Protein backbone atom coordinates (compact mmCIF):
# COMPACT_ATOMS: atom_id res chain seq x y z
CA UNK A 1 0.00 0.00 0.00
CA UNK A 2 1.46 3.36 -1.04
CA UNK A 3 -0.87 5.54 0.91
CA UNK A 4 -3.91 5.71 3.15
CA UNK A 5 -6.25 8.64 2.74
CA UNK A 6 -9.38 9.09 4.85
CA UNK A 7 -11.22 12.41 4.54
CA UNK A 8 -12.10 14.13 7.81
CA UNK A 9 -15.67 14.14 9.06
CA UNK A 10 -17.17 16.23 11.87
CA UNK A 11 -15.94 13.75 14.44
CA UNK A 12 -13.26 11.64 12.79
CA UNK A 13 -9.83 12.87 11.74
CA UNK A 14 -8.48 13.36 8.29
CA UNK A 15 -5.75 10.80 7.66
CA UNK A 16 -3.17 11.24 4.95
CA UNK A 17 -0.47 8.65 5.23
CA UNK A 18 1.93 8.94 2.31
CA UNK A 19 3.81 5.70 2.91
CA UNK A 20 5.97 6.05 -0.19
CA UNK A 21 7.22 9.47 0.96
CA UNK A 22 7.33 8.57 4.67
CA UNK A 23 5.04 11.46 5.55
CA UNK A 24 2.07 10.77 7.82
CA UNK A 25 -0.49 13.35 8.91
CA UNK A 26 -3.61 13.48 11.03
CA UNK A 27 -5.83 16.57 11.01
CA UNK A 28 -9.19 17.76 12.34
CA UNK A 29 -10.87 16.32 15.39
CA UNK A 30 -11.25 12.86 16.85
CA UNK A 31 -14.15 11.63 18.94
CA UNK A 32 -15.56 8.77 16.85
CA UNK A 33 -18.73 7.05 18.06
CA UNK A 34 -16.90 3.73 17.68
CA UNK A 35 -13.17 4.28 18.23
CA UNK A 36 -12.11 0.79 17.16
CA UNK A 37 -14.18 1.10 14.00
CA UNK A 38 -12.29 4.18 12.91
CA UNK A 39 -8.78 3.40 14.15
CA UNK A 40 -8.77 -0.33 13.31
CA UNK A 41 -8.07 0.20 9.59
CA UNK A 42 -5.57 2.95 10.43
CA UNK A 43 -3.62 0.60 12.73
CA UNK A 44 -3.70 -2.16 10.11
CA UNK A 45 -2.35 0.06 7.33
CA UNK A 46 0.35 1.48 9.59
CA UNK A 47 1.35 -1.93 10.90
CA UNK A 48 1.66 -3.19 7.32
CA UNK A 49 3.81 -0.22 6.36
CA UNK A 50 6.09 -0.50 9.39
CA UNK A 51 6.53 -4.26 8.97
CA UNK A 52 8.24 -3.73 5.63
CA UNK A 53 10.72 -1.01 6.41
CA UNK A 54 12.49 0.64 3.53
CA UNK A 55 14.70 2.23 6.14
CA UNK A 56 13.57 5.69 5.13
CA UNK A 57 12.85 8.41 7.65
CA UNK A 58 9.28 8.91 8.86
CA UNK A 59 7.67 12.26 9.59
CA UNK A 60 4.42 12.21 11.57
CA UNK A 61 2.50 15.47 11.83
CA UNK A 62 -0.08 15.40 14.60
CA UNK A 63 -2.35 18.32 13.70
CA UNK A 64 -5.49 17.32 15.59
CA UNK A 65 -7.22 20.25 17.28
CA UNK A 66 -9.18 18.04 19.65
CA UNK A 67 -9.34 14.35 20.60
CA UNK A 68 -11.32 12.57 23.31
CA UNK A 69 -9.92 10.17 25.89
CA UNK A 70 -10.68 7.03 23.85
CA UNK A 71 -8.83 8.54 20.89
CA UNK A 72 -5.92 9.34 23.23
CA UNK A 73 -5.49 5.60 23.79
CA UNK A 74 -5.55 5.01 20.03
CA UNK A 75 -2.95 7.73 19.42
CA UNK A 76 -0.78 6.20 22.13
CA UNK A 77 -0.96 2.92 20.18
CA UNK A 78 0.18 4.65 16.99
CA UNK A 79 3.08 6.39 18.72
CA UNK A 80 4.16 3.13 20.37
CA UNK A 81 4.31 1.51 16.92
CA UNK A 82 6.51 4.38 15.75
CA UNK A 83 8.65 4.14 18.90
CA UNK A 84 9.26 0.45 18.19
CA UNK A 85 10.65 1.07 14.70
CA UNK A 86 12.59 4.12 15.91
CA UNK A 87 14.22 1.94 18.57
CA UNK A 88 15.26 -0.45 15.81
CA UNK A 89 17.07 2.42 14.12
CA UNK A 90 14.60 4.03 11.75
CA UNK A 91 14.57 7.84 12.04
CA UNK A 92 11.14 9.02 13.18
CA UNK A 93 10.08 12.59 13.93
CA UNK A 94 6.76 13.40 15.55
CA UNK A 95 5.64 17.01 15.21
CA UNK A 96 2.89 17.90 17.67
CA UNK A 97 1.08 20.99 16.38
CA UNK A 98 -0.53 23.25 18.95
CA UNK A 99 -2.54 26.39 18.36
CA UNK A 100 -1.03 29.29 20.28
CA UNK A 101 -2.70 29.61 23.71
CA UNK A 102 -3.99 26.04 23.65
CA UNK A 103 -2.40 24.95 26.92
CA UNK A 104 -4.49 21.76 27.11
CA UNK A 105 -3.15 20.47 23.80
CA UNK A 106 0.39 21.50 24.75
CA UNK A 107 0.11 19.56 28.01
CA UNK A 108 -1.21 16.53 26.15
CA UNK A 109 1.79 16.72 23.85
CA UNK A 110 4.07 16.66 26.87
CA UNK A 111 2.18 13.63 28.22
CA UNK A 112 2.74 11.68 25.03
CA UNK A 113 6.33 12.88 24.61
CA UNK A 114 7.24 11.42 28.00
CA UNK A 115 7.00 7.90 26.61
CA UNK A 116 9.05 8.52 23.49
CA UNK A 117 12.75 7.78 23.84
CA UNK A 118 13.72 7.12 20.23
CA UNK A 119 11.15 9.11 18.31
CA UNK A 120 12.24 12.73 18.00
CA UNK A 121 9.43 14.84 19.43
CA UNK A 122 8.86 18.42 18.34
CA UNK A 123 6.21 20.85 19.50
CA UNK A 124 5.17 23.33 16.83
CA UNK A 125 3.01 26.35 17.47
CA UNK A 126 0.51 27.19 14.77
CA UNK A 127 -1.66 30.31 14.54
CA UNK A 128 -5.08 30.00 16.14
CA UNK A 129 -8.24 30.29 14.14
CA UNK A 130 -8.88 26.71 13.17
CA UNK A 131 -12.37 25.39 13.74
CA UNK A 132 -13.22 25.44 17.44
Amino acid at each position, binding site marked *: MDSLTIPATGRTPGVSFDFAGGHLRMTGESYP*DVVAGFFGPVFDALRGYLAHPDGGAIRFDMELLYFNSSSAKALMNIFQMLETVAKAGRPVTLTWCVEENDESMRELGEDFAEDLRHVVFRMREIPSGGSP
Partner: protein
Amino acid sequence: MLAQQYAAIKRDLDDKGILFSFSGYLSEGILYSLGEALREKMALEEADGPTIRRVFSVFVEQMQNIIRYSAEKMSGRAGRAVELSAGMVTIGVEDGKVFIVCGNTVRNGDVPRLKQRLDHLKSLDRNGIKSYYRERLREEPDDGSRGATLGLIEIARRASDPIDYDFNAMDADRSFFCLKVRV
Protein backbone atom coordinates in the same frame (compact mmCIF):
# COMPACT_ATOMS: atom_id res chain seq x y z
CA MET B 1 -52.39 25.49 32.19
CA LEU B 2 -50.16 23.75 29.69
CA ALA B 3 -48.11 26.85 28.90
CA GLN B 4 -48.05 27.79 32.56
CA GLN B 5 -46.62 24.40 33.56
CA TYR B 6 -43.89 24.42 30.97
CA ALA B 7 -43.14 28.11 31.45
CA ALA B 8 -42.48 27.29 35.10
CA ILE B 9 -40.03 24.56 34.10
CA LYS B 10 -38.33 26.90 31.65
CA ARG B 11 -38.18 29.72 34.20
CA ASP B 12 -36.61 27.38 36.71
CA LEU B 13 -33.95 26.38 34.18
CA ASP B 14 -33.35 30.02 33.18
CA ASP B 15 -32.99 31.06 36.82
CA LYS B 16 -30.30 28.43 37.29
CA GLY B 17 -28.39 29.89 34.32
CA ILE B 18 -29.03 26.80 32.21
CA LEU B 19 -28.37 27.17 28.49
CA PHE B 20 -29.11 23.63 27.36
CA SER B 21 -30.83 20.77 29.04
CA PHE B 22 -31.62 17.32 27.80
CA SER B 23 -33.25 14.48 29.66
CA GLY B 24 -34.09 11.13 28.18
CA TYR B 25 -32.44 8.60 25.97
CA LEU B 26 -29.00 9.71 24.81
CA SER B 27 -27.02 8.48 21.86
CA GLU B 28 -23.81 9.37 20.05
CA GLY B 29 -25.97 11.27 17.54
CA ILE B 30 -27.40 13.45 20.29
CA LEU B 31 -23.91 13.97 21.70
CA TYR B 32 -22.80 15.23 18.31
CA SER B 33 -25.74 17.58 17.79
CA LEU B 34 -25.75 19.02 21.31
CA GLY B 35 -21.98 19.41 21.11
CA GLU B 36 -22.27 21.39 17.87
CA ALA B 37 -24.93 23.65 19.39
CA LEU B 38 -22.76 24.18 22.46
CA ARG B 39 -19.75 25.16 20.38
CA GLU B 40 -21.78 27.46 18.14
CA LYS B 41 -23.28 29.18 21.16
CA MET B 42 -19.83 29.72 22.70
CA ALA B 43 -18.36 30.89 19.39
CA LEU B 44 -21.17 33.46 19.03
CA GLU B 45 -20.24 34.72 22.48
CA GLU B 46 -16.69 35.08 21.21
CA ALA B 47 -15.09 32.56 23.53
CA ASP B 48 -11.63 31.62 22.21
CA GLY B 49 -10.86 28.26 20.60
CA PRO B 50 -8.99 26.71 23.55
CA THR B 51 -11.79 27.67 26.01
CA ILE B 52 -14.46 26.22 23.72
CA ARG B 53 -12.45 23.01 23.35
CA ARG B 54 -11.97 22.71 27.11
CA VAL B 55 -15.72 22.94 27.73
CA PHE B 56 -16.42 20.67 24.76
CA SER B 57 -13.94 18.10 26.03
CA VAL B 58 -15.66 17.86 29.44
CA PHE B 59 -19.02 17.66 27.67
CA VAL B 60 -17.92 14.78 25.42
CA GLU B 61 -16.42 12.74 28.27
CA GLN B 62 -19.48 13.31 30.47
CA MET B 63 -21.87 12.31 27.68
CA GLN B 64 -19.85 9.24 26.78
CA ASN B 65 -19.83 8.18 30.43
CA ILE B 66 -23.64 8.18 30.37
CA ILE B 67 -23.80 6.42 27.01
CA ARG B 68 -21.43 3.70 28.22
CA TYR B 69 -22.27 3.34 31.89
CA SER B 70 -25.92 4.27 32.38
CA ALA B 71 -27.73 1.41 34.11
CA GLU B 72 -30.85 2.27 32.13
CA LYS B 73 -30.40 1.19 28.55
CA MET B 74 -32.54 0.18 25.64
CA SER B 75 -31.17 -1.74 22.72
CA GLY B 76 -32.44 -3.55 19.71
CA ARG B 77 -32.76 -3.25 16.00
CA ALA B 78 -34.59 -0.45 14.27
CA GLY B 79 -33.30 -1.07 10.78
CA ARG B 80 -29.81 -1.07 12.30
CA ALA B 81 -28.40 -1.82 15.76
CA VAL B 82 -29.54 0.87 18.16
CA GLU B 83 -28.45 1.43 21.72
CA LEU B 84 -29.88 4.23 23.81
CA SER B 85 -28.82 5.15 27.34
CA ALA B 86 -31.03 7.15 29.65
CA GLY B 87 -29.63 10.14 31.44
CA MET B 88 -29.61 13.89 31.56
CA VAL B 89 -27.20 16.63 30.67
CA THR B 90 -27.39 20.25 31.65
CA ILE B 91 -25.07 23.04 30.62
CA GLY B 92 -25.19 26.51 32.09
CA VAL B 93 -23.30 29.51 33.33
CA GLU B 94 -22.83 30.31 37.00
CA ASP B 95 -20.63 33.10 38.40
CA GLY B 96 -19.11 33.59 34.96
CA LYS B 97 -18.10 29.94 34.64
CA VAL B 98 -19.59 27.28 32.41
CA PHE B 99 -20.83 24.23 34.28
CA ILE B 100 -21.91 20.84 33.00
CA VAL B 101 -24.02 18.51 35.08
CA CYS B 102 -24.65 14.96 33.97
CA GLY B 103 -26.90 12.49 35.67
CA ASN B 104 -27.68 8.84 35.13
CA THR B 105 -28.85 5.74 36.91
CA VAL B 106 -26.19 3.42 38.30
CA ARG B 107 -26.45 0.07 40.03
CA ASN B 108 -26.00 0.26 43.78
CA GLY B 109 -23.31 -2.41 43.58
CA ASP B 110 -21.19 -0.06 41.44
CA VAL B 111 -21.56 2.93 43.77
CA PRO B 112 -18.69 2.25 46.22
CA ARG B 113 -16.14 1.81 43.43
CA LEU B 114 -17.30 4.91 41.56
CA LYS B 115 -17.23 6.92 44.81
CA GLN B 116 -13.72 5.74 45.52
CA ARG B 117 -12.52 6.78 42.06
CA LEU B 118 -14.14 10.21 42.28
CA ASP B 119 -12.82 10.83 45.81
CA HIS B 120 -9.36 9.87 44.67
CA LEU B 121 -9.60 12.35 41.78
CA LYS B 122 -10.89 15.05 44.11
CA SER B 123 -7.95 14.52 46.46
CA LEU B 124 -5.39 15.22 43.74
CA ASP B 125 -3.96 18.64 42.88
CA ARG B 126 -3.20 19.73 39.29
CA ASN B 127 0.13 17.94 39.15
CA GLY B 128 -1.33 14.84 40.76
CA ILE B 129 -4.09 14.71 38.13
CA LYS B 130 -1.50 15.18 35.40
CA SER B 131 0.67 12.27 36.53
CA TYR B 132 -2.41 10.11 37.10
CA TYR B 133 -3.45 10.83 33.49
CA ARG B 134 -0.02 9.85 32.21
CA GLU B 135 -0.09 6.65 34.24
CA ARG B 136 -3.52 5.62 32.92
CA LEU B 137 -2.66 6.61 29.35
CA ARG B 138 0.05 3.96 29.30
CA GLU B 139 -2.09 1.17 30.66
CA GLU B 140 -3.95 -1.29 28.49
CA PRO B 141 -7.45 -0.11 27.54
CA ASP B 142 -9.27 -3.05 29.08
CA ASP B 143 -7.75 -2.62 32.49
CA GLY B 144 -10.78 -0.60 33.52
CA SER B 145 -11.21 -2.13 36.92
CA ARG B 146 -8.44 -0.21 38.64
CA GLY B 147 -8.65 3.49 39.28
CA ALA B 148 -10.55 6.06 37.29
CA THR B 149 -10.99 5.80 33.55
CA LEU B 150 -9.03 8.18 31.37
CA GLY B 151 -12.32 9.97 30.64
CA LEU B 152 -12.92 10.86 34.29
CA ILE B 153 -9.34 12.04 34.68
CA GLU B 154 -9.71 14.17 31.54
CA ILE B 155 -12.82 15.74 33.08
CA ALA B 156 -11.02 16.52 36.35
CA ARG B 157 -8.09 17.92 34.43
CA ARG B 158 -10.13 20.41 32.41
CA ALA B 159 -12.21 21.49 35.41
CA SER B 160 -11.38 24.83 36.98
CA ASP B 161 -12.71 23.77 40.40
CA PRO B 162 -12.74 20.35 42.05
CA ILE B 163 -15.45 18.12 40.59
CA ASP B 164 -18.67 17.74 42.55
CA TYR B 165 -20.65 14.52 42.71
CA ASP B 166 -23.61 13.07 44.53
CA PHE B 167 -25.71 9.91 44.68
CA ASN B 168 -29.41 9.63 45.41
CA ALA B 169 -30.73 6.15 46.26
CA MET B 170 -33.73 5.28 44.06
CA ASP B 171 -34.54 1.80 45.27
CA ALA B 172 -32.81 -1.35 46.49
CA ASP B 173 -30.97 -1.79 43.19
CA ARG B 174 -30.35 1.62 41.76
CA SER B 175 -29.14 5.13 42.56
CA PHE B 176 -29.14 8.36 40.61
CA PHE B 177 -25.59 9.62 40.07
CA CYS B 178 -24.81 13.28 39.37
CA LEU B 179 -21.51 14.85 38.39
CA LYS B 180 -21.06 18.62 38.24
CA VAL B 181 -18.00 20.11 36.60
CA ARG B 182 -17.11 23.79 36.30
CA VAL B 183 -14.81 24.75 33.48
